[in-house]
């Protein structure tokens, strides 16, 4: 579980870390749009360059980015196979046995892969430099317009932040219960289907009962400390837009503009 890199916050200080989470979220959407529009390698190169600058500023090592790509490798191979089977336009690049591989299949796949990799890099850049709690606050802010429709943005944000706070606790709990059941002879790796189902039950049932117990106690603790769902509260963390944040959004918007323009002029 510790190998999971995607979505992990890196607690250091950097220029990118200091940008307002709302600005980073807006930037994320602008950049993702910018990645999906162009059809030119030059534009991809420019975007990649900006992302690389961002990663360097955020002090994120190349190793972490490469690791975050790992889970996608299977998907990329799958994509390549599917595209090779279905896309029959362009020139024939080479043949495997009697099977012909067309250039468009390769280029299409490469396009998708490059877009995916860029997207993952952008998202990693966001999650690695933004505390989960700040991210929640950013998302809450972006959902604000939905309040008109009586969407409980604040409660949702509270739920998400509590969930984030409890992830490490639940992971610990999972390992503990798995160990206890292993000691009782449960084999989580091997076994027939029936045994597998029992093994999963032996993990899930206790995990749920603990989680519910925690939830009840947490609810009591929150209530005892004066939390009333839906009631107005002040906030300890107040987000403030500053010059750096506007600059960041402007840069992202410029990249998007360049990317759109490329469709017409390149």
């Amino acid at each position: 579980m510790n190998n999971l890199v995607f979505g992990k916050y890196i607690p250091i200080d950097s220029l990118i870390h200091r940008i307002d989470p709302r600005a980073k979220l807006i930037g994320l959407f602008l950049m993702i749009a910018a990645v999906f529009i162009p059809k030119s390698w030059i534009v991809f190169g420019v975007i990649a360059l900006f992302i690389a600058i961002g990663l360097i500023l955020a002090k994120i090592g190349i190793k972490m980015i490469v690791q975050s790509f790992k889970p996608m490798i299977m998907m990329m191979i799958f994509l390549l196979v599917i595209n090779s089977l279905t896309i029959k336009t362009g020139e024939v690049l080479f043949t495997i046995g009697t099977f012909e591989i067309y250039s468009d299949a390769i280029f299409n796949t490469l396009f998708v892969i490059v877009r995916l990799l860029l997207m993952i890099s952008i998202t990693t850049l966001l999650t690695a430099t933004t505390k989960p709690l700040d991210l929640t606050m950013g998302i809450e802010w972006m959902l604000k317009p939905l309040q008109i429709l009586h969407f409980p943005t604040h409660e949702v944000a509270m739920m998400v932040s509590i969930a984030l706070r409890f992830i490490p606790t639940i992971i610990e709990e999972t390992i503990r219960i798995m160990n206890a059941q292993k000691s009782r002879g449960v084999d989580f790796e091997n076994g027939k289907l029936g045994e597998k189902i029992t093994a999963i039950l032996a993990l899930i049932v206790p995990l749920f009962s603990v989680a519910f117990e925690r939830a009840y106690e947490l609810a009591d603790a929150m209530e005892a400390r004066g939390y009333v769902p839906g009631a107005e509260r002040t906030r300890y963390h107040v987000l403030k837009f500053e010059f750096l944040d506007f600059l960041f959004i402007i840069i992202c918007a410029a990249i998007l503009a360049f990317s759109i323009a490329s469709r017409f002029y390149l």
Partner: protein
Amino acid sequence: MSLIEIRDLSYSYNESKKAVDGISLNIEKGSYTTIIGHNGSGKSTLAKLIAGLLPIKQGEVIVNGLKMSEENLPEIRKELGIVFQNPDNQFIGSTVKDDIAFGLENKRVRSEDMEPIIEEYANKVGLSAFLDHEPQNLSGGQKQRVAIAGILAMHPNIIIFDEATSMLDPKGKKEIKKLMYDLADDEANEITIISITHDIEEVLQSDDCVVLNKGKLFMHDKPEKVFEDAEKLRQIDLDVPFIEQIREVFRKQHIKLKAHDMEGMVDELWRFASNH
């Protein structure tokens, strides 16, 4: 008028058994009251009723002149804070700072006023150096101290400790008990402390002790008085202080010890021994 008045209070989770059964008692302002009893004696239920975490179905609880009811609950909540048993299940914020801030946010303290309050109370529980730490990197004792800081920051008159030390290691227990004793001794703030506990050493430090058995009030007296009759306590599955155990065992050897501490008892034994 007592700070907390409990009149003929009963509560049951299901129809077959009463968890709290006709309890009446008063708790005075500024006092340190311990509540003891075996598991299932109704201690935690009583604490939750006093804290307004369970609805009053029968009898009444009056806190600072206000009768516990749905309308009065928000007012009463301002009077009291509760520290629970499991340090993991009451840590709400993702850092020490955020957790102390949680109650302040509910109280609608202005965000620019929070920082000094957070620092003051983190300092009070000795966690100034841990403000930005996350809960998973704290010890059990430290987590409980965060909970106490969060409660103190709300300026309550009453703090309920619901077995707050029972899941901690000896070091954590010591930390939290020291903090509780300091709060009890703090004349300036006159905080009333109610502590549900199994820790006899702690009971001996308190002003009053409430003994519960099967949901009923068994005794409410000074701790020394409560522990006078060891046999009676054993009957309801309670532990007896070590000093009383010594007295009891030696009595069976026909040696009567009268002292109230171990040194005194050893002195008595020494006098007996040097007589022959």
